[in-house]
């Protein structure tokens, strides 16, 4: 081989190996992306009421003084979305209009729940034009529902049964609650777990058949 042929021989091989490495990395990244875009949903925390069971019986007062009752004995005509917020939580502030529009679209009554210093709440309500009758400040409510992290949303149906709940950080998380109610599962985690179990049982079934 001439010198120029040798140079091109080695240079081309280096390029081919380099290119194949790039292809490998790309395929792996596509694989990782597939894992990331698996259905996202509200993260249900273990404490608090169980989905499918009645919401805890709590009597609270909205900021305008009206009595708001939670639980199976409370009289109501529509489902209710309980949105736990804190005026200091940035995500709650950003998510608030989103939650409101989703609640309107799904014809559920939206109730904001919070606790702590009353002054905070007034400026929060004023800046977001929330009806005082839809804003409940009650420490008992948060304790009964086992709220550890914010913003947290609980969907209660017209019979006072908890249908879905979870930590919500995005629009998809809030929508997943309604999706979960429609599918009859407690949370996206339950759904994904159920899917695994279904495929497992399919396998067992296949073994049993043969």
């Amino acid at each position: 081989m001439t010198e120029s042929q040798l140079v091109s021989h080695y240079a081309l091989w280096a390029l081919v190996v380099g290119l194949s490495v790039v292809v490998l990395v790309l395929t792996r990244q596509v694989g990782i992306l597939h894992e990331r875009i698996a259905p996202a949903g509200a993260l249900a925390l273990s404490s608090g009421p169980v989905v499918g069971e009645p919401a805890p019986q709590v009597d609270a007062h909205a900021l305008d003084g009206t009595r708001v009752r939670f639980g199976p004995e409370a009289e109501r005509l529509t489902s209710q979305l309980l949105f736990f917020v804190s005026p200091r939580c940035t995500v709650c502030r950003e998510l608030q209009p989103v939650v409101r529009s989703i609640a309107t679209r799904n014809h559920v009554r939206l109730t904001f729940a919070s606790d702590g210093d009353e002054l905070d709440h007034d400026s929060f309500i004023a800046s977001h034009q929330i009806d005082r009758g839809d804003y409940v400040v009650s420490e008992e409510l948060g304790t009964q529902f086992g709220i550890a992290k914010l913003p947290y949303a609980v969907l209660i149906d017209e019979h006072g049964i908890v249908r879905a709940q979870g930590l919500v950080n995005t629009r998809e998380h809030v929508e997943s609650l309604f999706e979960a109610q429609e599918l009859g599962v407690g949370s996206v985690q339950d759904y994904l777990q159920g899917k695994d179990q279904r495929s497992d049982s399919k396998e067992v079934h296949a073994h049993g058949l043969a």
Partner: protein
Amino acid sequence: MEPVISWTLRVALALLFAISVWEKVQGFSKFKRAMRDYELIPRAWVSIAARSLIVCEGVVAIALVATPWSGLGVIGLLVVYCVAIAINLARGRTEIDCGCGGTDGQPLSSLLLVRNALLAIAALGVLLPLRSRPLGPHDIFAIGAAVTTISILWTASGQLLKNAQAVRSMEGTR
């Protein structure tokens, strides 16, 4: 056959079978379970059959470096695998693990038949008579680089099969 191409095929196939033996020994119980799931041999024989298959692959891997005739062994093994996979595909049992090694199992698919057919073509190439010519340092380099490239692309194709599976399972949820 040009010796550089023949040697590239032989070393790449030897590497493939060596890795396959290593993975099967590492996850022997998983491999046994996969073989049982194929339901082609009585359960009592599965353990012995699994061991002999691993030994066969090991022998083929070593023989590939020693003699071009080992291409026959490769084709023999691949025919056995293809028949086993084809029978279970015909039974419609696509959910069982193919037992091809790797950390997470791979379900049966016709793509595996295509993959094995490609390997068999490579093994046929090994069997072709060699054009005698001394190998120089540049040839050795070319063989090494080609084997490296083939290994990387092989891994990438495995990842692509896995991705295709992820896409299918995602379509199932929507």
